């Protein structure tokens, strides 16, 4: 064996040319290099959680309650234990002593919020169809599925609690020990609300409904736990958005010390909030691995997931807007009734509270009252689904702006112009206490109107109305903003959220000049590996290909707050920038030493430190990396490392905005609605990767449109989820969606060094009201003034029938919502 000579290695690496010539670095931010993630995804070499095979792996299957609400009078798993291939079977009582705590809710929005204990396996009472009552562990998934059929459970049925307003009567308690179904009341008020409404020339009052939605990420949830039981050490692989949060929470739920848990989010196939949670099956798999000393896998089936994975939305919104007759909004009142479902999951109560700040939208007025009551029901728990509170708020304000425009006889876009924050007014302090940093609503709207051909479509609409066309055209507007980039930790603290909103990044310079970026932000489809590579490559002046992004494993990326709330780029991406700055500063010290120059005389550009005035005296950052690795000649007292960690806590949210215009064709005979044209102009500040941004917008639009037209989690009065599979829960396919026209304006964020804003939720937040406004606009001449979601053909048809029956343009008859109330004089009620 030959002796290793460091000098030789150094020379070899230098001669190999691997250190590159970074002076030709072309900026990558703003470009769309091919996604790094795709190689494994398009070739089928992905590492989904369900792909994981470990010697000795056992499969768990969960028996779920078929009843919405019942007492378990007896449960017997002994026959299941005797089934071939079955290793173990447990009831809730069997595992009860293993739980150090219930499944967590990290957002106690009020000090007196009701927080019932939520054990991973129900013990005495089941509270929704899908509540877990027993678990079987078997040699393979087939044997586990079979064994479930041998479990004998007897239930004593209790009344289901499905209707939110009925739930408030407490006639049936979902959690008897809490004494009420009312989980919390959360109030907010700013300005002279009563006086404003008393003095208002026009008040429009509406009730809107946010149906329950099922997030339905394409990859079902799955978890694998690999134990070293003797050492009480566990690796938890989970299809999760939040490996870091999950690690903390699993420690609290199971009592296994946090340092003994490693949580890995392998490739994760979408989340949309549904994997932003701590689930019963994750805790169960961990305890089963501990008890049995064997690796455990659980993978949900889709129909199981429809019951056992959180749902989204689920609100009744009572909204009142006050305005002057010439179209100046003066005040807003919002009262929400929010469906918590049977238990409070990780951020269930916080979802409607996030929305509280967004009801004012992009408009200026001085009086705002908000209240939200959270209520327990015997349905699958709700939690964050793409947009989380903000789509609901945006829907309400954008719908009522259209209703106000109708009542005032004003073009809906003109009404918006009269009320929105103008571009020279930024930064703008809103009635809710937020500071919108930047935006240009005029520019986005003008561009959207141009792309849409608004005037042309209005002409076509008039022609169709004129000739009584069977297929009517409707135009809908949504001029939205949202708060994302969650979040400044102090703000989260003030809202009683259980953690901070920072994000971590580390940059490690490898001896060969290559770069590892470690991020605490955990992707599940967003493209972090590509975008972070762009950011790091630009910051350090290294080739895009030389950057490797590591994530989603608490052993590799130990610090993180994970991915939700459109926070990755605006928080996690900035952490990468900050870490790169630290690397450069450390490298500068080494470069100065090697060049025998003063640090202050060094410029850093294109990945190269050069001495100001004598550019031939230079060191690339790769050369510095190698020198630091060798550590032969470093400044006195310097550690041989230029690696750096950064944790970035944003000073503000980011406030993307945009104008979405939708034209629909509604077949007035059948009620079928087809999107005729969809134009959106979004402003997400500066853009790191326009292709990824556009993709996020497209996908967001699809989900927002799906809420408007297709999707609804339907429960029958007994509490059965009747839209329980993809056969009945209508996720739109390729033929059901239009080709979107997208464009952008750019109002850089002023609160982060990249000037970026979030984009992950924008399309979903904006699109739902645009579509519904369009449907109502199409049917306005027929007397239809409101439309429940989804605007299914039957709903549309019935609305037309009911409007006909009540004499055409009679106003609110179609939906029973309250009509315009005018307080300034008799003529206003016309």
């Amino acid at each position, binding site marked *: 064996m030959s002796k290793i000579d460091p000098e030789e290695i150094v020379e070899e690496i230098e001669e190999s040319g691997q250190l590159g010539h970074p002076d030709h670095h072309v900026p990558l931010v703003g470009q769309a290099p091919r996604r790094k993630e795709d190689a494994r995804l398009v*070739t089928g070499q992905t590492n989904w959680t369900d792909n994981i095979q470990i010697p000795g792996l056992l499969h768990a299957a969960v028996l779920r309650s078929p009843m919405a609400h019942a007492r378990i009078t007896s449960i017997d798993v002994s026959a299941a234990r005797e089934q071939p291939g079955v290793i173990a079977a447990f009831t809730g009582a069997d595992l009860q002593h293993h739980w150090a705590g219930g499944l967590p809710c990290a957002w106690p929005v009020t000090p007196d919020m009701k927080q019932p204990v939520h054990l991973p396996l129900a013990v005495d009472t089941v509270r929704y169809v899908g509540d877990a009552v027993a678990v079987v562990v078997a040699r393979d998934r087939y044997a586990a599925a079979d064994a479930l059929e041998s479990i004998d459970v007897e239930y004593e049925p209790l009344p289901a609690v499905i209707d939110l307003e009925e739930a408030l009567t407490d006639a049936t308690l979902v959690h008897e020990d809490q004494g009420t179904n009312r989980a919390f009341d959360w109030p907010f008020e700013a300005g002279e609300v009563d006086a404003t409404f008393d003095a208002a020339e026009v008040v429009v009052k509406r009730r809107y409904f946010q149906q329950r939605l099922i997030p339905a990420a394409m990859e079902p949830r799955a978890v694998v736990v690999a134990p070293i039981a003797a050492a009480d050490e566990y690796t938890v692989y989970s299809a999760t958005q939040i490996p870091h949060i999950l690690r903390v929470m699993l420690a609290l739920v199971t009592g296994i010390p946090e340092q003994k848990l490693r949580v890995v989010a392998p490739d994760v196939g979408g989340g949309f909030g549904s994997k932003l949670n701590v689930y019963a099956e994750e805790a169960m798999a961990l305890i089963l691995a501990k008890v049995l000393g064997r690796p455990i896998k659980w993978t949900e089936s889709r129909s199981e997931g429809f019951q056992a994975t959180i749902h989204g939305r689920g609100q009744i919104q009572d909204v009142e807007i006050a305005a002057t007759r010439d179209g100046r909004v003066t005040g807003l009142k919002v009262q929400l009734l929010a469906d918590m479902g049977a238990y409070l999951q990780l951020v269930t109560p916080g979802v409607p509270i996030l929305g509280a700040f967004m009801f004012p939208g992009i408009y200026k007025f001085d009086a705002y009252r908000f209240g939200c009551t959270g209520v327990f029901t015997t349905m699958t728990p709700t939690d964050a689904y793409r947009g989380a509170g903000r789509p609901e708020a945006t829907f309400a304000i954008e719908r009522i702006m259209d209703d106000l425009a109708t009542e005032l006889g004003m073009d809906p876009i003109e009404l918006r112009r009269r009320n929105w924050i103008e571009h020279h007014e930024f930064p703008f302090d809103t009635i809710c206490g937020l500071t919108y940093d930047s935006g240009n609503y005029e520019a986005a709207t003008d561009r959207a109107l141009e792309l849409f051909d608004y005037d042309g479509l209005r002409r076509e609409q008039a022609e169709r109305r004129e000739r009584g066309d069977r297929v009517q055209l409707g135009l809908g507007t949504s001029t939205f903003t949202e708060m994302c980039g969650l979040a400044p930790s102090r703000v989260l603290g003030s809202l009683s959220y259980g953690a901070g909103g920072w994000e971590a990044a580390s940059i490690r310079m490898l001896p060969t000049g290559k770069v590892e970026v470690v991020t605490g932000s955990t992707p599940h489809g967003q493209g972090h590996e590509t975008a972070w590579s762009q950011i790091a490559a630009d910051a350090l002046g290294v080739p895009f290909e030389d950057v490797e992004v590591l994530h989603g494993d608490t052993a590799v990326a130990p610090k993180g707050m994970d991915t939700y709330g459109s926070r990755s780029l605006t928080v996690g991406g900035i952490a990468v920038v900050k870490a790169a700055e630290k690397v450069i500063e450390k490298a500068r010290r080494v470069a100065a030493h090697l060049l025998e120059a003063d640090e202050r005389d060094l410029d850093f550009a294109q990945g190269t430190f050069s001495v100001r005035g004598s550019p031939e005296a230079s060191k690339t950052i790769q050369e510095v990396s190698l020198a630091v690795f060798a550590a032969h000649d470093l400044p006195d007292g310097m550690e041989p490392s230029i690696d750096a960690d950064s944790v970035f806590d944003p000073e503000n949210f980011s406030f993307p905005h945009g104008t979405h215009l939708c034209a629909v064709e509604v077949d007035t005979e059948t009620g079928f609605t087809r999107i005729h044209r969809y134009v959106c102009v979004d402003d997400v500040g500066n853009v790191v990767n326009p292709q990824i941004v556009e993709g996020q917008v497209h996908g967001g639009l699809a989900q927002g449109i799906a809420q408007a037209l297709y999707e609804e989690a339907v429960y029958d009065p007994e509490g059965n989820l009747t839209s329980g599979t993809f056969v009945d829960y209508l996720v739109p396919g390729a033929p059901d969606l239009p080709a979107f026209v997208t464009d952008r304006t750019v109002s850089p964020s002023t609160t982060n060094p990249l000037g970026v804003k979030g984009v992950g939720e924008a399309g979903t937040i904006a699109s739902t009201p645009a579509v519904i406004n369009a449907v109502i606009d199409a049917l306005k001449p027929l007397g239809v003034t409101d439309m429940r979601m989804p605007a299914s053909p039957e709903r549309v048809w019935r609305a037309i029938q009911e409007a006909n029956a009540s004499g055409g343009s009679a106003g609110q008859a179609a939906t029973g919502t309250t009509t315009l109330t005018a307080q300034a004089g008799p003529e206003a009620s016309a």
Partner: protein
Amino acid sequence: MPDIDVRINGIRYQDHVEPRLLLVHYLRDRLGLTGTNVGCDTSNCGACTVLVDGTGAKSCTMLAVQADGTEITTIQGLAGGEGAGAPEDWHPLQKAFNAEHGLQCGYCTPGMIMSSVDLLQRNPDPTEDEIRHGLEGNLCRCTGYQNIVKAVQAAAGELRAAGAPGAVVGGQS
């Protein structure tokens, strides 16, 4: 237990299988061909789509025994030979999905690409509408389909330029 004799991605397998074993579980759990995904249990999502004797099939709605005697191509064999890695060797659809950003989380992608192979074999020059309808057996939750359609259009162009539709499936044309 019946015996099956099946060629998958060019490799011949002879196995005993339980009659109820679904083809997708045979691929994933028995052969370790985890490129093919399960996204639902009602034959709606198409994530599990493979080619059986050259045409698209949902492998969750097919028994492994039904595959006896057939030739199957999964996403992992599309570029010809399993594990073919280098981007220049990818099938034009794989390249196009990458270039046009036709995937985000990528879970639907293997099924989407295999359905697109089937579509382009049948219709080498599809309109946008024909592409959308040709993919109606596959659900995607991330992309809104727009870039998937673009990717199929781009790949169709490349395949037409390259010649015969027989070139669509690598390794078994």
